[in-house]
């Protein structure tokens, strides 16, 4: 009796793939919540001045309506800045300044890891009174920043290290964003979700243009994108190992686009430009097998407008300019969303396994390639949860569940529509909704139950 190995169905690996992208997102959120709860317990209100607060700085004495209008103006200014920066990125990419973009991305990563990381580490040192001296500290910070730049910049660094550094960049920038005033943060999140929706789905959207450019040229967009390890690499053979590696590497986006915006403030002593890579959700299935001559590449890119990142085949890049040290902080996030790209190539359906694999590839979950998610998605999910942590842990749990549900829905929509989809809107909508519902309704209920010893 011959036994045939049954062809793998979609469900065999879908859980593993989703977990491999949910784990770093959750890790990023947990780290931001920890940072927020440690560092914000001491200082009550410390806010940064950046481009996101240039229209209006919130003070605690304003009325609610004033705060709301101020927050709207802030968000509008921010989204306009991001749009402009994204269009500049598209232009630069169109005129093939790829090397400049790569260098800029590396420079921004260095600034984020070096200066923003040192600043947050200094806060922690002060909080815990760690008796570390400045020589050791500067040496460690220098090492950390340089290795981080190499990890996100170089194509062939160890996967774990690259993924770890991307998560760390997300944590640092997200923590910085939680320092914005409260109303501004919430309105900004909603505005960015709407912007993401527009930039990816509208035909004139900058992210969509960028992705189409990248696809038409078959080039990579330099951007910071988190790529999960592909699931089925056990059966890889040394003979076709090189092929698969190359294929997987080609889809990796290592460069991040950074664009710096000129600092608006007059007296900016040190300008910290940090570009965060965009959120792109890229499912790349690349069947480059040895025995079958099919080369079907289906790329699903879900782009989140947050950062400028160039990823191969359409990825969103967000640029985040942060000037931290002295002077004002200016932030520009340009979000590129990478549309989902569907390359149809010649497919030879010879065997049943090929057909099954094609179907798997159709929803971006085939045997090769991993799910990609842009760094801007990481950052704004973490900002939402971090801001929820500033209220209470109950809202943290509710928002975390909402965001994870939103991400799952987005992945399913991705598999369904097979075109570029933004990853921010669903999660942010659910997150904001759950935050306000929990804060206004659930908390009262739970507190009263606990006070009266009513368990259920």
């Amino acid at each position, binding site marked *: *009796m*011959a*036994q*045939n*190995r049954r062809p793998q169905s979609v469900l065999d690996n879908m859980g593993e793939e989703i977990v491999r992208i949910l784990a770093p997102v959750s890790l990023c959120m947990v780290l931001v919540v920890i940072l927020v709860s440690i560092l914000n317990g001491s200082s009550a209100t*410390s*806010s*940064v001045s950046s481009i996101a607060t240039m229209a209006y700085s919130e003070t605690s004495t304003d009325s609610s309506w004033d705060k709301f209008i101020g927050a709207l103006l802030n968000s509008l200014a921010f989204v306009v800045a991001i749009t402009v920066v994204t269009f500049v990125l598209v232009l630069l990419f169109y005129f093939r300044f790829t090397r400049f973009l790569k260098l800029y991305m590396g420079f921004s990563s260095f600034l984020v890891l070096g200066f923003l990381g*040192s*600043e947050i580490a*200094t*806060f922690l*040192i*002060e909080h815990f*009174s*760690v*008796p*570390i*001296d*400045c*020589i*050791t*500290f500067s*040496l460690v910070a*220098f*090492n*950390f920043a*340089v*290795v981080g730049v*190499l990890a996100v910049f170089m194509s*062939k*660094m*160890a*996967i*774990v*290290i690259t993924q770890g550094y991307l998560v760390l960049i997300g944590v640092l920038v997200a923590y910085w964003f939680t*320092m914005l005033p409260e109303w501004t943060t919430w309105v900004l999140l909603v505005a960015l979700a709407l912007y993401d929706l527009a930039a990816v789905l509208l035909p004139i959207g900058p992210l969509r243009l960028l992705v189409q450019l990248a696809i038409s040229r078959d080039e990579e967009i330099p951007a910071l994108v988190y790529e999960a*390890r*592909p699931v089925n*690499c*056990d*059966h*890889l053979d*040394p003979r076709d*190992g*090189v092929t*698969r*590696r190359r294929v*997987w590497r080609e889809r990796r986006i290592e460069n991040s686009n950074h664009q710096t915006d000129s600092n608006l403030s007059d007296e900016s002593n040190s300008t910290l430009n940090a570009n965060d890579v965009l959120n792109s959700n890229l499912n790349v299935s690349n069947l480059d097998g040895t025995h079958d001559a099919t080369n079907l590449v289906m790329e699903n890119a879900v782009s989140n407008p947050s950062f400028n990142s160039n990823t191969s085949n359409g990825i969103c890049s967000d640029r985040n300019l942060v000037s*931290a*040290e*002295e*002077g004002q*902080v200016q932030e520009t996030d340009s979000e590129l969303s990478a549309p989902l790209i569907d390359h149809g190539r010649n497919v030879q359906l010879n065997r049943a396994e090929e057909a099954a694999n094609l179907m798997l590839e159709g929803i971006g979950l085939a045997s090769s390639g991993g799910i990609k998610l842009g760094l801007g998605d990481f950052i704004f999910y973490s900002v939402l949860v971090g801001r929820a942590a500033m209220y209470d842990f109950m809202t943290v749990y509710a928002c975390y569940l909402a965001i994870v549900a939103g991400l799952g829905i987005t992945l399913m929509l991705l598999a369904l529509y097979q075109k570029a989809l933004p990853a921010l809107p669903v999660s942010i909508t659910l997150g904001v909704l759950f935050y306000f519902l929990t804060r206004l309704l659930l908390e009262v209920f739970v507190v009263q139950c606990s006070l009266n010893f009513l368990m259920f």
Partner: protein
Amino acid sequence: MEASQSDNPNFNPNPTPIGNSLSSSVPLWPTIDGPLGLSEEDALSYARKFYKFGFALLPLLWAVNCFYFWPVLRHAHSFPRIRRYVVASAVGFSVFAALLCSWALTFAIGGERLFGPVWNELVMYNLADRLGLTGWS
């Protein structure tokens, strides 16, 4: 009556020998990523570059070198050309880490009793206060 296996063309009796501890076989891939990592030729240039750049006060790069080429380090007779650089990186990282830890511990444990007023000048939180790094300004 019939054999119930080995008819499957996909049946692979010899999985990749990396995890095979019965024989001291040479690992197939020099990097920790396995088939997703580098080939041997690329690996040599990467190992050499990591080793050389580590001398620019970057012991973490040496540590990354050892971590990345862990299969080379672990199997004693594999990839001789790469192994030279990886072992040198490991030695360099250990020495540097020992020096740095001893200095940091001396500073932390000795404190003011050992160093005198200089300690207050060197410690990080005072320095940050003085330079105004602790506020977002």
